[in-house]
């Protein structure tokens, strides 16, 4: 079961890399043509093509490309000729930092809200949280972001609205500057995690052993924390990891709003400039992170569920 899922994950990664690689081939002209522009003569383009290895067949080029990436070499940007690995390095760390920061706030918050909603279900609290989370799921991220900027940054002046961190920014200042982007991401993902936590626990509350505990006269609180929660961990962990995957991808819009120097902003800029090698590299990193986190979610849910670990 576990090995099957792992090999499926590796296969997915391989297929995703092939798709992203092939996507470049669909562009009219090729990278050599794009770098030299329309005015270049046929000979210079052919020379550059040979130097970049573009005259070789696709499987060979794919192999070279993949080997390069595994050694940290993503090629060069068309727009400014810089090494892509140089452009990406610090930015990827920034994106991960923001996602982890958001996760540290949102996961405990979502669990607490979800357990409380399951404990006091159909109460005013539960209904309010239900409407609020349903609304926050259906709002665009930039709406949440600008509302936070308007109130917290502009009107109350608590946190800065620009997250312009550099490689030398000290940790505390970095936390201060990235607080609003992290809060925006938190508001976006908490709703989903909280609803799933509530659903997972309520689902269990219908099972006979909970009714038994009820009949024994155990308090409601104890039933949830001692009896329901341990069995609900598997779906909850799954949801948390899936939301982490969403965080990594969802940062794109938030990074642009707060002018945060992350991978998402690089991706957006490169799409506007049609700088394909950079877009390709960013997409590959985002997609690989996404696939790996999804894989982690599945593996964790297999590991935490004895029935899946030892199939009949």
């Amino acid at each position, binding site marked *: 079961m576990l090995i099957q899922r792992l090999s499926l994950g590796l296969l*997915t990664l391989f297929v995703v890399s092939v798709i992203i690689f092939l996507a470049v081939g669909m562009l009219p002209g090729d990278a050599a043509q794009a770098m030299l522009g329309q005015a270049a003569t046929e000979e210079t383009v052919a020379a550059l093509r040979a130097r970049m290895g573009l005259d070789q067949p696709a499987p060979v080029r794919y192999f070279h490309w993949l080997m390069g990436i595994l050694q940290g070499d993503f090629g060069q940007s068309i727009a400014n000729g810089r090494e892509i690995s140089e452009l990406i390095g610090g930015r990827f760390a920034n994106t991960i930092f923001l996602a982890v920061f958001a996760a540290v706030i949102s996961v405990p918050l979502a669990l607490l809200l979800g357990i409380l909603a399951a404990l006091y279900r159909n109460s005013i609290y539960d209904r309010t949280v239900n409407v609020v989370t*349903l*609304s926050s799921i259906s709002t665009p*991220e*930039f*709406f949440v972001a600008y509302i936070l900027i308007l109130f917290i940054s502009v009107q109350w002046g608590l946190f800065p609205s620009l997250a312009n961190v550099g490689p030398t920014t000290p940790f505390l200042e970095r936390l201060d500057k990235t607080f609003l982007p992290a809060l925006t991401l938190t508001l976006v993902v908490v709703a989903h995690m909280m609803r799933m936590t509530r659903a997972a626990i309520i689902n269990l509350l219908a099972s006979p052993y909970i009714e038994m505990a009820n009949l024994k006269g155990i308090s409601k609180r104890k039933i949830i924390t001692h009896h329901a929660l341990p069995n609900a961990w598997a779906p909850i962990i799954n949801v948390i990891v899936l939301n982490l995957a969403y965080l990594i991808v969802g940062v794109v*819009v938030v990074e642009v709003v707060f002018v945060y120097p992350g991978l998402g902003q690089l991706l957006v800029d490169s799409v506007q400039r049609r700088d*394909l090698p950079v*877009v390709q590299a960013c*997409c590959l990193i985002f997609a690989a992170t996404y696939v790996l986190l999804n894989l982690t979610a599945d593996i964790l849910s297999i590991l935490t569920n004895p029935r899946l670990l030892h199939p009949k």
Partner: protein
Amino acid sequence: MNEPGNSAPSTDSVPPPPRPSSSALAVAGRELWRAPFSAKVGLLIIATYIFVALFAPVIAPYGESEIVGPQFDVWSEDHPLGTDHLGRDMLSRLIYGARNTVGIALLTTLFAFLLGGTCGILAATLGGWMDQLLSRTVDVLMAIPALIFAMLLLTIFGTSIINLILIIGVLDATRVFRIARAVSLNVVVMDFIESARLRGEGLAWITMREVLPNIMPPLVAEFGLRFCFVFLTISALSFLGLGIQPPTADWGSMVRDTSTLITYGDITPLLPAAAIAILTIGVNFVVDWFLHKTSGLKDEH
């Protein structure tokens, strides 16, 4: 979840009538009256948006891309919501935005349903290698996050409205495919499908007359949810400058264009964003109620 065995499959958006004597319209009216408050609010919101989108040229005080005043003008009698970064009237552009943004999102969702729904039902009805081929293709497409994939494809094909509709439509069709295939699989094993096959009905008859009416309720609910998703994706892309291009009035790009105002405490950039949020919330309320009605979740409490 769905009940394919239900005696009267209804292609209507209302459940089968409780009494045969009442007309469909009367039933719809009664259901509407009994709908919870949130669903009524949702329906009212949707109706308002449709009205504004249809009569945009009549309601809007100025033209869509007409420059009528100084840049970033404050709210005044002439311009109730001020002007944008080029001096175009914000209110008029908000009104035209209902037409463009919602219209494009609706077209994209329809395309996604036509493609994903057809493939999903076909995969379930035909089975075999056709099912394998379609399902594995969808698995691969879904392995890459949609927004990221959309950006990669937009870089390759360029940002135009047609490309936007096709790319988002195809990416979203994968989700529709999954749902359509899953619910059709429950239906194609039923006896009436078997007997239709034995009668010698063709593929078109079986899919259109036998399967489709029975999977309609979950698909309609899914349509609402997918519309919200497509709408938010297109707005996000437009906000990033990669979606609907100027001078077309569009809510996502309007937020982007006026976003500098927020640092002066001006709420103008929030208006188009709120227009997006209110519509998705409204649709969600209606879908929530519809799911409740059709899936028999009524006895939850």
